[in-house]
């Protein structure tokens, strides 16, 4: 039995609401206001990148720009700046397109231990990520307002990559930028309505982890990454 006690529970809810149980026919109302669509309305991709850059200062995140040609150089630099001796990256179909496959293969020659997430290796992936200094993934949708990268985690993009290493590097294709979360969730909402299953884990990540639990002092870097770098790539 995968659902237990539902009928009595929901019948009671309906009783308390003073009406018959509703199992179908409920539609969302037309809300009287929808302020979310006014945020950065009509902004160009370049303007959104500027907003993202501003927000990165607020969220303690390094912001870098690159072209398709300079991307690997910028990543290499970022790995070095973050003392990256062990690097884990997502197995993303964009790796080839962005010239990352060969770049990653060559990291070994530079004395950097590299691991590409591989579901056939099971928990070995997690063990490597736990020891890694740097984790690298692409952003699937990037929210300019809050400085957030959205990851649809999947077989090749494990949850641990952006979580366990001390430093997280997100590669942000310029085309993935949208004003705010509203556009990202509309995409998910529509895909779901079209019968596409939403990823088992959708991660909205905004900079490194932090806490204000000790005397309200902001501490950057608690359980998740201590540092974060965003690299925006001109892909359009």
């Amino acid at each position, binding site marked *: 039995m*995968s*659902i*237990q*006690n*539902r009928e*009595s*529970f*929901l*019948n*009671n*809810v309906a009783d*308390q*609401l003073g009406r018959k149980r509703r*199992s179908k026919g*409920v539609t*969302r*109302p037309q*809300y*009287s*206001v*929808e*302020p*979310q669509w006014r945020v950065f309305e009509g902004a160009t991709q370049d303007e959104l990148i500027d907003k993202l850059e501003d927000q990165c200062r607020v969220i303690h995140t390094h912001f870098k720009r690159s072209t398709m040609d300079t991307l690997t150089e910028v990543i290499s630099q970022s790995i070095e700046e973050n003392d990256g001796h062990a690097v884990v990256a997502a197995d993303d179909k964009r790796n080839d397109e962005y010239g990352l496959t060969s770049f990653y293969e060559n990291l070994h020659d530079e004395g950097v231990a590299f691991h590409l997430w591989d579901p056939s*290796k099971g928990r070995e992936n*997690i063990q490597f990520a*736990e020891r890694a200094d740097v984790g690298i993934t692409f952003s699937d949708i990037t*929210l300019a307002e*809050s*400085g957030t990268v959205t990851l649809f985690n*999947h*077989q090749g993009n*494990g*949850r*641990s990559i952006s*979580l366990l290493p001390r430093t997280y590097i997100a590669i942000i294709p310029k085309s993935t930028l949208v004003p705010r*979360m*509203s556009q*990202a*969730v*509309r995409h*998910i*909402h529509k895909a*779901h309505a079209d019968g596409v299953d*939403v990823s*088992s*884990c*959708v*991660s909205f990540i*905004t900079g490194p*982890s*932090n*806490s204000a*639990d*000790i*005397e*309200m002092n902001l*501490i950057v*870097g608690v359980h*998740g*990454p201590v540092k974060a770098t965003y690299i925006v790539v001109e892909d359009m």
Partner: protein
Amino acid sequence: MGIKIGNAPFRDRVQEGIENDFMRGAVSSAQGRFRSGRLKAAEELGDWEDWRTLGEEIRSHTLQNLDYYLEQLSEQVSKRGGKVFFAQTAEEANEYIRNVVQKKEAKKIVKSKSMVTEEIGLNETLEKAGAEVVETDLGEWILQMDEDPPSHIVTPALHKNKEQIRETFASKKGYKNSDLPEELATFAREQLRKEFLSADVGITGCNFAVAESGAVTFVTNEGNARLVTALPETQISVMGMERLVPTWEELDVMVSLLTRAAVGQKLTSYVTSITGTKQEDEVDGPEDYHLVIVDNGRSKILGTEFQSALHCIRCAACINVCPVYRHVGGHSYGSVYPGPIGAVLTPLLDGYDDHKDLPYASTLCAACTEACPVKIPLHEHLVRHREIIVEKEKKAPRSERMMMDGFAKWGSHPAAYKLSTKMARKALKPWTKEEVIQSGPGPLKGWTDVRDFPAPSEQTFRSWFKTRQKGGRS
């Protein structure tokens, strides 16, 4: 532990809070920071009132159709390999979770911060069953070591200072470094990493579930909820039955309101939505997923004049502006839910018997109502609670009832009224010093314990008015 924390009478708890200088300093500075963060975030948004209106409309629609959306949610979670348990009571929820844990022969459980698990007293149940439960939110971890209840729903260890925390780490975990918050946090990171990696079961709360697709969303800054949901093979999410939204589009609005109202952030570091079990070939994420939906007194609030209290998204904005909370601190409320929302919600969930003082822990200044991102009329609910306590529950103190009866008789006899207003100044003379009474007799004592009472004027209002009408001195 459950929703009620401690057995000391309300007055004693308040006294203890007022005497705790560190706590009061910490609370007032935290309130200042939270408040200015929220106002700044609202200002940046520009049309905050529209956002609040939208938030209220979403919450109201969802609660009106709660049975529909909960059914949809459970179908979706089940479709994605999860198991759903509807728990009418705290006991049922605890029992189900204990069974899951025992079947797994789980020894270690990691938890991310969850108010509903505090409310149902889950940790106690699991510890009794022989499992080790580790709270992984930094604030909750500190409190767990000290066996101390939370005093704020967003920053639970607000009442502790860094010296106390260093002390706790040193005595309980052999910590040897300084009381710098960064060093303390680094130590927590190292210690808790081991726990995450070796845990058999992860338990979380739920900020919002998305009915249309079965996603359960966590809003955090530390990243512990991500670890709790990524590493252990079994994962249990516990949600209050009202914590859901119809679709992903409403999730956006509610999360945007929550992070701004709670901490003034546009989004927290992590907003994580997990749906059922991990998919085939996925390495991390749970193999076994359970969603426990808890009523525990909530359904009694549906269909009543208090229904909007269930719109609460636990942002603590009301707590952060409350002048009473500022002075007495979170523990004074004797509930896992402190502040204005706690004073509204606790008597509804747990009855008036133990919590009849809470609706009086308010100046009715309405700062809470103004701060609430989903427009819950908190101070109006508090007034209504007071009416019910006095009129229906007859729980007003005997002395107050006698006084009110006396006042009614006195006020309806003009001669008695006239005589006593004339006599009041003389009668109170022995207690009067320089036109104020600092330590009054009888019923005045409750007032003068905490503030001065002005001595009755030499001239009564009536005689002043009469003179004025005759064209005399006014």
